[in-house]
C-alpha cells in the first residue's frame, strides 16, 4: 500500500477577508512527483504559506506524513518540515554551500563548526546528485542551477519528505532541466515527494505522474499526464488565450526589412563570447540562453552599466553610449515589483524616462498634463491618482509598459516577461508587447525557458556557452523539441479547438473578495 505524505482535505483558507483556498483538496503519495498548474494566481501564495506553517483554517484538514497537523478547529502555528524552492534564492549569500546545507538547518546543535567535517559530510549528497559543486563555494557565486541543487540538497538533508518546486523552468535552462528531472526521479525513488508548480502543462508532463489544475484557489481537476494538452486544459480559461495567440499569429505580418534597431557584432563580455545578432524595428526576437549564463551580462551591457570587452553593441546604428541610454529600455522580470518607484507618484513613474524627449517635463506642468489627458482614457482616470503601491498587478504592468511606450526606445529588452504570470496576466503582457511592436519598437525577449515567448516571436535565437547555437524562424518553430511550451501549436498550426465544449471562453474570472462561502 502506498504511504501518503500529504493530504489536504477540503481546505478553505481566508486571509484578510479574501478567500484564498476554497474546498481545496490535494493528496500526494511518498515518492510521487505531482504537478500543480495554476491557471491564475489566486491561492497559490496562500497554499505555499499553508504548507510551510499550520495557519488557522476556515475549514478543512491537513495531514502530513500520516499525522493530522492542522485542522479548522485548531491550528498551532507550528512549521511543517516541507521544503519550498522558489525562483529567488533562499540561501544565505555570504555563507558557503556546506554552511547553508548543514548550519542553517533546524536541529543543528553543534557549537563549533568544523569546516572540513561539514565538507566531508556534504560530499555524498552532492555525489548523489551527480552535479559538480564545491562545498566551499559561497552561495553568492552560485548560478541558478547549482543554487537550485543546493536548496534541494538542503531540503533533503533537513529531512523534508515533501519538496515544493516553484516554476523551476523559469530559472533553470532547458539543458539543465533534464539533469534536474533525473535528480528528482532519483530522490523520488528514495521516497521523497515533490509538488512541481509549473505554468505549462508540457513542462509538468515531462516529469510528473499526474497534474492538478488549480483555478481560483481550488483544484479544478487532477489529470494523469498521459493526457494531451487541449482536452484537459482547454476548459479552464486557456482557450481564450490560445485563440488570441492564434488569431494574432495569422494576422501578423513579417516585419519589413529595415536597418536593425539593435545589432550585436562579435560581442564579448564575461560569459558572452562572440555573440552576433540583430533585431529589426517592430521585430520580436527571443534569445534563449540554454545554460543561463549570459542574461545577467547582457542586461548589464544593454542597460549601459558595463562596457563590452570586445565587439560592438549598436543601437539604431550607433554605439550605446551614456547619452543614448534611453534608446534601450530594459524591462526586468516581474516588473510590477522590480521596475516601479513606489515613492514617486503615478505620473512621475509614467514620465520618468520621458525627459530626453520633453526636457521640461519636471519643470513645467503642461507636458505632464498633456500626457495625462492623452493616456487617462487608456490607463484609467482613477488609476492615475492612486499611490503606486495601491495599484493592482494589472495596473502596474500597464504603467511599466506605457512608460516604455512614452520613452520610444529603439529596442525594448524584456527579461523573462511571462515569469510567474497567470493566464490573464500573460494575455495582458502579450497585448502590451504587441503595442510596442506596433509602434515600431524592436522587442528582444531574454529567456531561460520559452514559456509563452514563442507565441509572439518572429525569430528564436538559442545561445549556448555564450555564442549562438541555432536560429529558428517562425516556420521552423515546429522543429523545436516536443517539451517546448506551445509545441502542439506549431506542429499543428491548423488544428482547431472545440469551442462548443467550453463553458466559459472569456478570461479567467478571479474569485471575488469577501465572496460568501458555506460555513462548515
Amino acid at each position, binding site marked *: 500500500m502506498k504511504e501518503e505524505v500529504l493530504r489536504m482535505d477540503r481546505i478553505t483558507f481566508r486571509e484578510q477577508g479574501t478567500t484564498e483556498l476554497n474546498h481545496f483538496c490535494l493528496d500526494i503519495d511518498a515518492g510521487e512527483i505531482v504537478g500543480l498548474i495554476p491557471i491564475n494566481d489566486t491561492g497559490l501564495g496562500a497554499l505555499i504559506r499553508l504548507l510551510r506553517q499550520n495557519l488557522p483554517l476556515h475549514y478543512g484538514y491537513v495531514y502530513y506524513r500520516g499525522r493530522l497537523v492542522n485542522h479548522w478547529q485548531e491550528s498551532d502555528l507550528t512549521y511543517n518540515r516541507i521544503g519550498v524552492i522558489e525562483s529567488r534564492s533562499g540561501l544565505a549569500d555570504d555563507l558557503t554551500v556546506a554552511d547553508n546545507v548543514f548550519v542553517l538547518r533546524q536541529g543543528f546543535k553543534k557549537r563549533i563548526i568544523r569546516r572540513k567535517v561539514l565538507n566531508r559530510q556534504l560530499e555524498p549528497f552532492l555525489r548523489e546528485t551527480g552535479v559538480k559543486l564545491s562545498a566551499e563555494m559561497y552561495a553568492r557565486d552560485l548560478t541558478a542551477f547549482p543554487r537550485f541543487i543546493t536548496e534541494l540538497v538542503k531540503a533533503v538533508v533537513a529531512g523534508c519528505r515533501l519538496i515544493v518546486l516553484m516554476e523551476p523552468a523559469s530559472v533553470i535552462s532547458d539543458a539543465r532541466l533534464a539533469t534536474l528531472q533525473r535528480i528528482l526521479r532519483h530522490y523520488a525513488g528514495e521516497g521523497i515527494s515533490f509538488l512541481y508548480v509549473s505554468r505549462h502543462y508540457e513542462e509538468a508532463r515531462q516529469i510528473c505522474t499526474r497534474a492538478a489544475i488549480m483555478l481560483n484557489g481550488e483544484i479544478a481537476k487532477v489529470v494523469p499526464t498521459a493526457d494531451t494538452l487541449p482536452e484537459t486544459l482547454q476548459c479552464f480559461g486557456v482557450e481564450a488565450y490560445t485563440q488570441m495567440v492564434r488569431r494574432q499569429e495569422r494576422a501578423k505580418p513579417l516585419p519589413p526589412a529595415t536597418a536593425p534597431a539593435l545589432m550585436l557584432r562579435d560581442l564579448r563580455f564575461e560569459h558572452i563570447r562572440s555573440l552576433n545578432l540583430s533585431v529589426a524595428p517592430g521585430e520580436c526576437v527571443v534569445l534563449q540562453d540554454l545554460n543561463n549564463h549570459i542574461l545577467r551580462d547582457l542586461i548589464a551591457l544593454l542597460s549601459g552599466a558595463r562596457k563590452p570587452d570586445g565587439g560592438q553593441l549598436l543601437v539604431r546604428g550607433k554605439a550605446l553610449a551614456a547619452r543614448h541610454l534611453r534608446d534601450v529600455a530594459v524591462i526586468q522580470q516581474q516588473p510590477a515589483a522590480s521596475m516601479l*518607484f513606489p515613492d*514617486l507618484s503615478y505620473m512621475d513613474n509614467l514620465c520618468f524616462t520621458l525627459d530626453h524627449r520633453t526636457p521640461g517635463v519636471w519643470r513645467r506642468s503642461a507636458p505632464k498634463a498633456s500626457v495625462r489627458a492623452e493616456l487617462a482614457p487608456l490607463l484609467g482616470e482613477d488609476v492615475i491618482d492612486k499611490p503606486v503601491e*495601491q495599484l493592482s498587478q494589472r495596473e502596474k504592468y500597464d504603467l511599466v509598459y506605457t512608460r516604455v511606450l512614452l520613452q520610444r526606445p529603439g529596442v525594448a529588452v524584456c527579461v523573462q516577461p511571462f515569469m510567474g504570470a497567470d493566464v490573464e496576466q500573460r494575455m495582458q503582457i502579450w497585448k502590451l508587447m504587441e503595442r510596442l511592436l506596433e509602434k515600431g519598437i524592436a522587442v528582444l525577449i531574454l529567456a531561460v525557458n520559452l514559456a509563452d515567448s514563442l507565441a509572439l516571436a518572429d525569430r528564436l535565437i538559442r545561445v549556448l556557452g555564450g555564442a549562438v547555437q541555432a536560429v529558428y524562424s517562425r516556420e521552423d518553430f515546429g522543429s523545436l523539441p516536443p517539451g517546448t511550451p506551445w509545441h502542439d501549436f506549431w506542429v499543428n498550426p491548423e488544428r482547431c479547438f472545440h469551442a462548443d465544449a467550453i463553458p466559459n471562453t472569456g478570461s479567467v474570472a478571479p474569485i471575488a473578495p469577501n465572496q460568501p462561502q458555506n460555513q462548515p
Partner: protein
Amino acid sequence: MQAKRMNPLRRFFAIRGMGSAMIAFAALIVIYVVFGLREPNVFSPVNIQNLLRSMSKYLIIGIGQSYLLITGNIDLSLGSVVGMSAMISATLMTHGTNPLLAALIALLACLVIGLINGLLVGKAQLPPFIATLGTMFTARGIGYMINGNRNTDAIASGIGKEAGDAFQNFFYYGRTLGVFNTFLVAVVVFIIFFFLLSKTRTGRHIYAIGSNVDAAKLSGVSVFATTTKAYMVSAFCAFVVGLILCAQAGMGNMEAGNMYEMYAVASGVIGGISPLGGTGLLLGTFAGAAVWQTLENGLNMIGAQVGLQRIVIGVIVVFAVLLDVVVRRGTRKRIK
C-alpha cells in the same frame, strides 16, 4: 478630453511626504504656543528674529543631509566639513585674503570632500556610513591643521576691520528689510535646492535612487553621478554653514560644526524625510529645523537644563523615525 482630477486638498496631501511635513508644521505651532504661554517673551519680535537666525544653520545643514537621506545614504562628514569651511575661510582672512577669495577656496575644499564622498559611495560602493566616517575624520583633521592646531585670531584683524565687519554683517549680524541676513541666506539656499529637488531631472533621479535603485539603473539613471551630486549639495550646504559660524564667532573655531551631522539628520527626519530613502520634502526639513530650534529656544527660555533639552530632542527624533517606519509598514500591510 479633460481628465477628471482629484480635489485640490486631497491632491496636496497625496504628495509623498507632504503629510509628514504638515505634521511637523503643526507640531511646530503647538510647541511654539505652549512655550509662549509659559514664557510670553517667546512671542516677542526680538526672540522671533533670533529664532529665525538660529534655525538657519540647521535648515541649511538639514537640506544637505536631506538630499542624502532621500537617496538612501547619509553624510557623517557634514559637521567636520562645516568646521573645515570655517577654519579655511577664517585662516585665509586672518592672513589678509579677500573674504570672497577665502570663501571660494573654502568652497573648493568642501566640494572636493563632497566629490570624494560621491566617489567612495557611488563608484567604489562603500557603505556610506563607513565612507563618510573616514572623510569626517579627514575633514576635521584638515580643519585642525590649517592653522597649526589652534583657533584663528579674529578675522577683522587680518583683513582689516571693514572687510571683517562686512563679512560678519553679510552672514550673521546684518539685516535686510528687518530680517537677519542669515535667515535670508538660508531662504535662498532653500529655494535653490527646493527647485533642484522638485523641478529638475536630477531631483527625480535622487528620489528614484532612494526608492528603487535597480529600477533607476535600468531606466538609464547614473547612480554614481546622482549620488555624487547629492554629496556635492551636502558639501555646499556645509560650506555655507561654515561661513555663518565663522561670521558668528568672528574667528575660526576648530570645533565648529561639531555634531552638526546629527542635527542635520534630526532636522530631516523630524520633517518627514525617510531615513530609508525615497520619500520626503525639503518643506519638511524646514519644519524640522524650526521644530528643533524652537525646542532649544523654548527650553532655554523656560530655564530647562541642557540635559533635558537633549532628552526631549532625542525622543522626538526617535518618534519621528518610528512614525515613518510604522506608516510604511502599515501601507505595505494594506496593500497585501
